[in-house]
């Protein structure tokens, strides 16, 4: 569990990003930023545009207005492979592994850009971070459990030691205990290892616990922004999830 990561983070900035699937934009002028060694989370109800935002940051969706910067480099509307080469590791919510390929092959694909001689060393390193993957290197990725699969997806991205990690609801469809350990142990550790982590989550309380800063998205627009402590205390925060007027906040358990 004590594998030390030495990642070199880069700041990621999105300014006024407007994007969608061809018709009306789904997200409107959204600005977020994340710095090295930070976990920055984006939360919000279903359909608020969280995944759309992430897809537009990595070049999967066309950005119709705004800019996306990695460090000093403008990556707005670069194709996904060039964004990846600029140091961004993206874990999509679904279709996050090559299901017909084995675990090892998935990791090799993740390390596609590495010099051949370094691939094994990087696989070793990923296995040190995700020890459970070590015993299943020969298994097809499609046969893994939900938690293992998500670890593989993150491990695949880790192969290139990206400067910025973009994680799209990594805990979706995971049991609560597994979700918590994934966030606490692994996501947090990426930032502690030096990387920049931008994570989209629906489990707001759990992700707040590991975040340095949080953005709340609603209806495709930025609603709130702040530190987890500040947000948890705000009545607007609960309202942004459940809507409605100015009810008192029920005392949370997390």
């Amino acid at each position, binding site marked *: 569990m004590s594998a030390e990561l030495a990642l070199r983070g880069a700041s990621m900035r999105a300014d006024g990003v407007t994007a969608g699937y061809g018709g009306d934009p789904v997200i409107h002028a959204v600005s977020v930023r994340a710095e090295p060694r930070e976990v920055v989370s984006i939360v919000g109800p279903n359909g608020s545009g969280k995944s759309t935002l992430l897809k537009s940051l990595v070049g999967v969706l066309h950005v119709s207005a705004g800019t996306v910067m990695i460090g000093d480099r403008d990556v707005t509307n670069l194709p996904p*492979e060039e964004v990846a*080469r600029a140091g961004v590791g993206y874990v999509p919510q679904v279709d*996050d592994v090559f299901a*017909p*390929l084995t675990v090892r092959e998935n990791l090799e694909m993740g390390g596609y*850009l590495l010099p051949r001689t370094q691939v094994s060393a990087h696989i070793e390193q990923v296995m040190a971070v995700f020890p459970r993957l070590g015993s299943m290197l020969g298994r097809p990725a499609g046969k893994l459990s939900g938690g293992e699969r998500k670890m593989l997806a993150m491990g695949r991205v880790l192969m290139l030691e990206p400067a910025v990690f973009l994680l799209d609801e990594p805990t979706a469809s995971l049991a609560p205990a597994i979700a918590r350990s994934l966030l606490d142990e692994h996501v947090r550790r990426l930032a502690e290892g030096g990387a920049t982590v931008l994570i989209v989550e629906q489990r707001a309380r759990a992700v707040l616990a590991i975040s340095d800063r949080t953005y709340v998205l609603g209806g495709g627009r930025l609603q709130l922004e702040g530190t987890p402590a500040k947000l948890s205390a705000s009545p607007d925060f609960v309202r942004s999830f459940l809507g409605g007027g100015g009810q008192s906040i029920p005392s949370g358990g997390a």
Partner: protein
Amino acid sequence: MSIFLASVGFGLITSAVLAIAAIGFTLQFGVTDVLNLAFAAVMTAGAYVAYWVNVSGFSVWIGLLVAMAACSLLSVLLNVVVYTPFQRRGSSPITLVIVSLGMALIIEFGIEAKVGGIDVSYTMGQGRTFRVGGLILTTVQLVIIGISLVVMAGVHVLLKYSRLGKAMRATAANRTLARNCGIRTSRVITLTWALTGAMCGLAGTVFAIDIGSFGPTSPDLFLVLILAAVFLGGPGHAYGAMLGALLIGIATEVSAAFIAPDYKYVVAFVALLAMLAIRPAGLLGARA
């Protein structure tokens, strides 16, 4: 020597030729999503390129190499000029199949317009005759089997160990995710066309060597065998195509010996239709 053994011998040669073509076809479909019915027409083009080299006084084996290069180029052009523009526009798979059939007509009858309808043969020796455990095979036939084994081993090494092969598999499995890994999929697709095009030219030439004399429409029926092998193993599945080629090749020749030579395609045909009806993902395919 028994008829059975002799027919197995013929079957092995058919399988060898078929394997080269079927692997090329299935990789093309798996990686690029084009069900390229012009494949047999490109094979024909390769066979004729080798013929022209051959009649210019060179060995047919030199012609084979030139045919591979020519078909590689032709396939890349086919993709860049025709298929990719249609795919970019979001045309349905069925539109692409019709387009590929149109391209098949253009290439096949373009060749016929040039060469006329007369069958031709390569100028080459058949070499010695060998008896191997009851099978009788000529040097050339052994060379064909050897080439096929080399192609199969090569494809295995390519897919399993090489960077390009891995990128091809990643692109076939999940194109978007492959791009997120930094793989330049459009380049991978171009290289796939180049590679499978070369296999197509190789298959066309050894097919022509195997059948002795050929004309512009000879490989038409061979397309039936290719499709049968591909669908038997599972479309897009390279190892499935190898298995399919072996089964179809031997089954057709053995049935030709025991039923009637004219009906050897029926076995392939029945196998193809049965797979389409019962298990479209093929013997080795994952999905039902």
